[in-house]
């Protein structure tokens, strides 16, 4: 067996079907654990009191919003370069969940901003670029939906994804490049984290849970897309008859 076996939609359909329950259960269990840390182990913050507990969804959601976009751009690039069918399907399968996490990051940010800054929303670089990310997701999904020809749609959507990828580093570094109300990153790759270990642990557990959730729903979605596109093949017909 070699790895390229799974680049074929038929094989990937079966593999994904086997993997989904593992990711879904993993996501569920880690969410329970993460919530337990977030509400029962993590102490009250000395500056923000209990309001800081929003961090346990806000930060993982914001990470996911950016990371899913980069993964979509990666699949789009692979698809455009090598014309691999499955890559485009993966890109399409990820977009709605990316948009969802972007919305959650914005929503929880507003609910955190109000008690801490006194404003639901400010037009600064971090918030504005994250809002643009939401518009990019929605625009890409709408573009896919508007183009009936699957191949043309794939290419157009992926091209737009790649162009929009410039926004991701802008979001990430916006708190360094411009003055902002938004606090700087609590953790980054070069410095020690500026938060209590248990708070960090809660955030990371929730982030991994969000990852597993994303993989699970993206796999469910990609299976549907595979079946739809491969419906003329014998293997897809056999599956539809069996189900």
């Amino acid at each position: 067996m070699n790895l390229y076996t799974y680049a074929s939609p038929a094989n990937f359909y079966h593999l994904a079907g086997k993997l989904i329950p593992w990711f879904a259960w993993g996501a569920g269990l880690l969410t329970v654990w993460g919530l337990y840390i977030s509400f029962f182990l993590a102490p009250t913050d000395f500056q923000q009191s209990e309001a800081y507990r929003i961090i346990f969804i806000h930060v993982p959601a914001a990470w996911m919003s950016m990371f899913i976009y980069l993964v979509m751009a990666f699949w789009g690039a692979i698809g455009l370069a090598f014309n691999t069918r499955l890559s485009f399907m993966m890109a399409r399968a990820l977009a709605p969940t990316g948009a969802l996490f972007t919305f959650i990051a914005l929503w929880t940010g507003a609910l955190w901003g109000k008690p801490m800054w006194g404003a639901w929303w400010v037009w600064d670089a971090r918030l504005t670029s994250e809002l643009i990310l939401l518009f990019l997701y929605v625009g890409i999904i709408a573009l896919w939906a508007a183009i009936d020809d699957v191949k043309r749609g794939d290419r157009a959507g992926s091209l737009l994804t790649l162009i929009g990828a410039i926004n991701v580093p802008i979001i990430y570094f916006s708190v360094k490049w411009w003055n902002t109300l938004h606090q700087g990153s609590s953790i980054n790759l070069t410095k020690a984290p500026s938060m209590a270990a248990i708070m960090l642990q809660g955030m990371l557990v929730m982030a991994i849970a969000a990852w597993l959730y994303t993989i699970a729903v993206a796999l469910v979605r990609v299976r549907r897309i595979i079946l739809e596109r491969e419906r003329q093949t014998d293997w897809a017909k056999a599956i539809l008859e069996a189900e």
Partner: protein
Amino acid sequence: MEWASWSDFWHMAGYGLYVWGSYAVTAACILVEVILLKRAGTDTRRRLKRMQQWEEQ
């Protein structure tokens, strides 16, 4: 343990609306996504099956 009572827990030191507003909407979003995903899955399979039966006739 951080909480003296359940009402303390829901109150969140006065930030209950913001904290629970965040968690509730997140939970609702995920629930909606899962339900829509399930429904889309059954709809697509049903539709493809019907198309297949048509083609066989």
